[in-house]
């Protein structure tokens, strides 16, 4: 449980963030059809990423039963991704968007998310004391929830450093990990993220079966560019 601008939020092991009092589920960076975008360019990654992401999303919705779902942008890997959805995946997605008030926040990968899949497209979205957008703004008023960076934390352990996706949290904002199946990540202590979170921040790391909380000072500064998941 974390608190932001007087609102209680629950990070979920799936990488989603649940705002229970507003019955709102938030996910970031779904990157639908990332695999087929690589396939288009000659790298045929397995065509199961969208289905995998949808299954995880559906599972989180079943568990939490939100009235509203907010996708924080880069939901589609590229502007043509909607057209590449396999028939079954498109149907599943339509069924999901029909189950809740669905908000697509536009991202840099999907400035114009497809409109035939249900849900409403917005740029920024304000709800009560919180603002939802794709990329955090340095000058944002407190209470900002965003994605974009795919933060990962590198935690030194007695075995070696363990690299896992994480939520990054300070007094004014939360940055969500990527929810999509085939997404990579950026070290949360990289200046691109950390500069938005100065001076102090915490991370909630997605473990295998539970979440773990660390102050930023407990994390490695550098991640080897190849992530061990």
């Amino acid at each position, binding site marked *: 449980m974390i608190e932001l601008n007087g609102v209680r939020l629950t990070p979920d092991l799936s990488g989603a963030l649940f705002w229970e009092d507003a019955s709102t589920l938030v996910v970031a960076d779904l990157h639908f059809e990332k695999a087929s975008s690589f396939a288009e360019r000659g790298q045929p990654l397995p065509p199961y990423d969208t289905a995998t992401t949808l299954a995880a999303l559906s599972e989180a919705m079943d568990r939490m039963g939100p009235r509203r779902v907010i996708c924080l942008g880069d939901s589609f890997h590229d502007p043509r991704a909607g057209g590449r959805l396999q028939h079954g995946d498109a149907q599943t997605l339509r069924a999901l968007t029909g189950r809740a008030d669905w908000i697509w926040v536009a991202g840099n990968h999907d400035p114009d998310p497809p409109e035939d899949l249900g849900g409403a497209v917005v740029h920024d979205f304000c709800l009560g004391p919180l603002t939802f957008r794709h990329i955090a703004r340095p000058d944002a008023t407190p209470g900002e929830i965003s994605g974009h960076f795919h933060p990962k934390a590198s935690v030194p352990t*007695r075995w070696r450093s363990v690299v896992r996706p994480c939520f990054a949290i300070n007094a004014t904002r939360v940055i969500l990990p990527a929810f999509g199946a085939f997404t990579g990540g950026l070290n949360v202590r990289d200046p691109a993220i950390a500069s938005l979170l100065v001076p102090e921040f915490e991370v909630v790391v997605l473990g295998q079966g539970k979440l773990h909380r660390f102050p930023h000072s407990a994390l490695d500064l550098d991640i080897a560019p190849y992530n061990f998941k």
Partner: protein
Amino acid sequence: MSDLPRIFEDWFASRGWRPHAHQKKLLTAAKNGESVLLIAPTGGGKTLSGFLPTLVDLAAAPQTGLHTLYVSPLKALAVDVHRNLEQPIAEMGLGISTETRTGDTPPAKKQRQRKRPPNVLMTTPESLALLLATPDAAQMFATLRRVIIDEVHALAGTKRGDLLALGLSRVRALNRDIHCVGLSATVAHPNALRGYVHPSARIIQVPGGKKPKIGIVSAHGRMPWSGHMGLYAVPEVYAEIQNHTTTLIFVNTRATAEIVFQALWRINELNLPIALHHGSLDREQRRKVEAAMAAGKLRAVVATSSLDLGIDWGAVDLVIQMGAPKGTARLVQRIGRSNHRFDTPSEALLVPGNRFEALECTVARAGVLANVLDGDPPRPGTLDVLCQHIMGMACAGPFTADDLYAEVISAAPYGGLARQDFDESLAFVENGGYSLRAYERFSKLVRDSSGRYHVRNPRLVRQYRMNAGVIVEADHIKVRLGGRILGQVEEYFILGLTAGDTFIFGGRLLAFVGIRNGVAIATPAKGGDPQVPAYMGGRLPLTTTLADAVQRYFHTPERWPELGPEVREWLAAQAEHSSFPQPGRLLVETFPRGARHFMVVYGFAGRNAHQTLGLLLTRRMLRYKYKPLGFVAGDYAVAVWSGEDPTDVEGLLEQDILGDELEEWITESNMMKRMFRTVAVISGLIERKAPGAEKTGRQVTFSSDIIYDVLRRHEPNHILLRATRADAASGLIDLKRLADMLQAAHGKIDHRRLDRVSPLAVPVMLSIGKESVGPAMIDELLDDAGESLIAEAMRRTGRGK
């Protein structure tokens, strides 16, 4: 009657040489158009033998265009051979053009070589693959007569060897008249190599020279109980260096090389020039050492298998092997690096690392003297390399599946390739080969009306050319000291360091600063307790032949007097307290120690198979509620410790451990994921480099681990997963050997319940704590990290100091 023309006879005579018998045999074979596998110990003038028919041929009938293709596993060797060949050509005034073509050849020269090739081209498997993947390959190889494959024994059975075999299958398809000559060290499976060289090759075997003189260090009361480096004998080693002109010191791992090098320099009061050579050092550094060696400027080089192959140095008069040799064939090759003359025996000294290794050294020496060779026959060709080759062939020009299949199975490693596997490899290249046919519109290959496959667009050709090759270095990180790159270490090791940690690399003591842009930054360090990078692939496991010989040795006490007194006492004590392992049976000892229970399984299946067994055993012990705590694996045995007494030893070692536990483990295994990554890169699923968008360092935008998970879930039989599993059968996971061992042990387990540790178990037990015990669960580690943080915080705010 000699096939050697006069000018050659004169040239040999001018140097005071006479052609060897095998050189004449090769000439005759070449005249008859026969392919040959030449097996000779080092120093047999092998390379010149290979080229002599080419020179004779071209001297008699000069031609333009390519006549002979020479392929070497080492770029440096190709360059060196080129230099050595120019000499006779120049001295006899033969006017034969020779050139090298490697990754270092400038693009303009490569272009020119394609249009106007030299008579003799020296190249590597990778460069040959790229050469063949062009439309003008047919023209270039039309005039080819001969192919020479150097160090065949080091290529066959490896992925590079697969790549070369496939390349040669294309060369033979382009030009049916060529004959091939393979040059090989003495090996256990000459016939497999013969087929690799050419389906109809015959073997010419050069007899060895004099039997080598092999000593084993007598430890005089200092034979350690554990360890693999033989550091106790460094003073003896140093004395031997002083007594010889040039000494080659072979060790088994790069880490050992670093440590032995440091130890020698600590006592190097005479400042003898002693150098270090291993595969992780920067290429420039290695070249310098090799050049200094060739110029006779060094008294000793500490080296790993990086010097097993390559240039012959006549001046080496002693080879020292530190740590057990792990195989007799390998020991023979290493010993052969000394004294490259037939008339004097090579001299070698073995330094066992511990009591167990003393047995291994003794047995290996006997094996060498009795000409027992070991090693497994080359495994079948790998599917990921086949995928890369198919794409390369598509870049060369359109093909039909039937034709390419016929061509591919003419390569020995692929002789048994099922059509189904070929078709699936082709389907993978085409569009991923997924049962979900989502990518047909993105196919890389398109079929014309006559069923021939074409590459869809030129961009894909560029993509192939940028990513070709089968050496995947993705998980290494360069180490930089000031402005200099010292070499590279495994990322795995670097991830285990925190800023300020000291480590030894490149013969220096370094402090780790951090990773910047994918490069590990280091500064010179003064002291501390340094770590040494370990390399997962760095250690070859004990061969089956040698393992069996060691087990048999236990049961021949009449030979024990040749061992030192400490080793004899150790064996006698074991006979009294427990019993000995023997081939065909499996000795397992269990005993309590402290609050723990230990189980030592003397599998003699080599480190990799034991490592896998340890991982599986701890899983099964968890199910049996024995509370497993950890394990350590060595070449001879694996030891597992637990909170409860593992009473059902037979149940634990049932063969079905390779079912459930293995399946479970494979899902999580980092090792499998690393193997998959290699397969994914080689097959072309993951690009190393993208045309137009050069990635900095090894930045990947997705995780191959996740691709692996998803593929396992959705297409467990996908060709790339099958390729990964095939890789796991040998190498780091060594499943096949483990399966063989468990099968042989079924119903033949000798379980000794002891009240305390046995003498034989001591060397195994002592390595506990020195070796990493493998990953615990992620959550446990993170919990732990959290707790140690709390402890640290409490200490800081704390009471007392």
